[in-house]
């Protein structure tokens, strides 16, 4: 059975970029969206963890997944999968943590996607940014390595606007203000006054007027 085509919204794509920009360490998060028979639409990304100790232990991930599930239900969406970025830009391996996270999502929802961010493709070349994610998808009872279930890059559809916003972010043209910094679940646990769902930031990403190129 062919894998569904995954598309990602502008806000979700750039939320992940911002999370990766903020922390030079390994990062993880969940992606939420809607499931169709032939296509899945990733509508939002929730950043979760950035520090090594939280990343390689399970409690914070477990709680974050439970809360994200409730958030998805509240918004009429599903958890579609997880995103992950290794600390070293060259490292394209899928280690223990993303495997466990993706397996946990697959066990609860039946299918999951794993988006592995390839930081080397985040550059001024927009064509490279389009392939910034390695997409791995698994359905049903299929077991085995996530790396072996990789789909072609083209099945993650990214809009041109998302790429232009990413370009502006990476170039330091927009979102330089400290108040607009992204917050993940780990930040929120350290300071509950911060919003790990980043509602204002997502609104800003959706309404952003790009400078004329």
């Amino acid at each position, binding site marked *: 059975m062919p894998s569904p085509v995954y598309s990602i919204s502008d806000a979700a794509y750039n939320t992940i970029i911002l999370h990766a920009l903020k922390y030079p360490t390994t990062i993880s998060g969940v992606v939420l969206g809607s499931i169709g028979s032939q296509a899945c639409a990733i509508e939002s990304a929730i950043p979760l963890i950035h520090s090594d*100790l939280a990343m390689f232990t399970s*409690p914070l991930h477990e709680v974050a997944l439970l809360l994200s599930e409730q958030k998805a239900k509240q918004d009429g969406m599903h958890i579609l999968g997880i995103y992950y970025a290794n*600390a070293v830009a060259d*490292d394209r391996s899928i280690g223990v943590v993303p495997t466990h996270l993706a397996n946990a999502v697959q066990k609860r929802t039946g299918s999951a996607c794993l988006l592995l961010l390839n930081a080397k493709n985040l550059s001024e070349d927009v064509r490279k940014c389009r392939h910034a994610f390695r997409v791995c998808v698994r359905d049903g009872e299929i077991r085995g390595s996530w790396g072996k279930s990789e789909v072609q890059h083209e099945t993650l559809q990214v809009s041109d606007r998302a790429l232009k916003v990413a370009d502006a972010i990476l170039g330091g043209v927009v979102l330089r203000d400290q108040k607009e910094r992204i917050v993940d679940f780990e930040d929120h646990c*350290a300071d*509950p*006054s*911060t919003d790990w769902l980043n509602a204002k930031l997502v609104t800003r990403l959706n309404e952003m007027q790009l400078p004329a190129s």
Partner: protein
Amino acid sequence: MAAAALDAQLAAANSSAPPVAATALSLISDARLYRPRTVLRLADTALRAHRPSTRPFWDAAEQVALAAYHVFDSRTAAQFVRRILDRFPNSSRARLLQAISHESQLKWVDAARAYIRITDADPLFKPAYKRQVALLKSQFKLSEAATLLHDYLNKFATDFDAWAELCALDLQLGRFAHAIFAANELLLLDPHNHAAHTVVADVYATLGGVHNLCLARKHYAASLSMRAASNLRALYGLWLVCATLLDGRLLKDDRDLQVTLRLFRVARKGITAVYRNPTAQSGAVFVANTLGMSVYTGEKRVLKE
């Protein structure tokens, strides 16, 4: 200081007043934040706040050089490193900055040689050993990095951050017994540190099994007894571990059951109180729904059994 308040202060430091910019750089350094672009933006203004003969000037210059490395601005980094080396030609700190330039150009062998020269000349200079560990991690040599870090801790056993780093490396390598050892060293170094108890609890909770979950429960509770206000990690951890013990019917001893139930209620109440605070963000409603997911919202069921 809360991160949001700190970020507000850093945003205000966009002014052209040198003392304000210098204070912002000190805040970033003291809180050990990763804000290289902010440091570079404030660099020129901040350096005008100090006289070039003073220590704060050169501390700030070192901070700017490191920030430049972080964003791969090799020109600014080289400029500052040259000035620092001219002023302090025999300093290990200055030579370290020069050695980091090899790393930033991905010249691993040259960097390794440079760090070895520094540690040979100055065996008590800790940052050079730490850079050697970071160098190995950059080359995906995690096992060698853990071994080197272990050797470093044999020399400098009171380095809290190094033990935390070793714990994380051992977890990543799947060496759980070593990770437990490293986590417990954090407690030995600072037994009244709530964060150390949370780390130990997280490791035990990850390992799983009744015995480890009970130990995790104990350390989360200890973390909360040291810091009750807004200690969400310990609250969520305690809630999760107690819910796992209760929902999975893993406890046979009645006293254990009562203690777990009491701590479960404490955690649930604590989390609810945090989100009842009007300054708390993000989803009091779905937090309440998540807390309600555990079977043991019905405590009567426990008491009857």
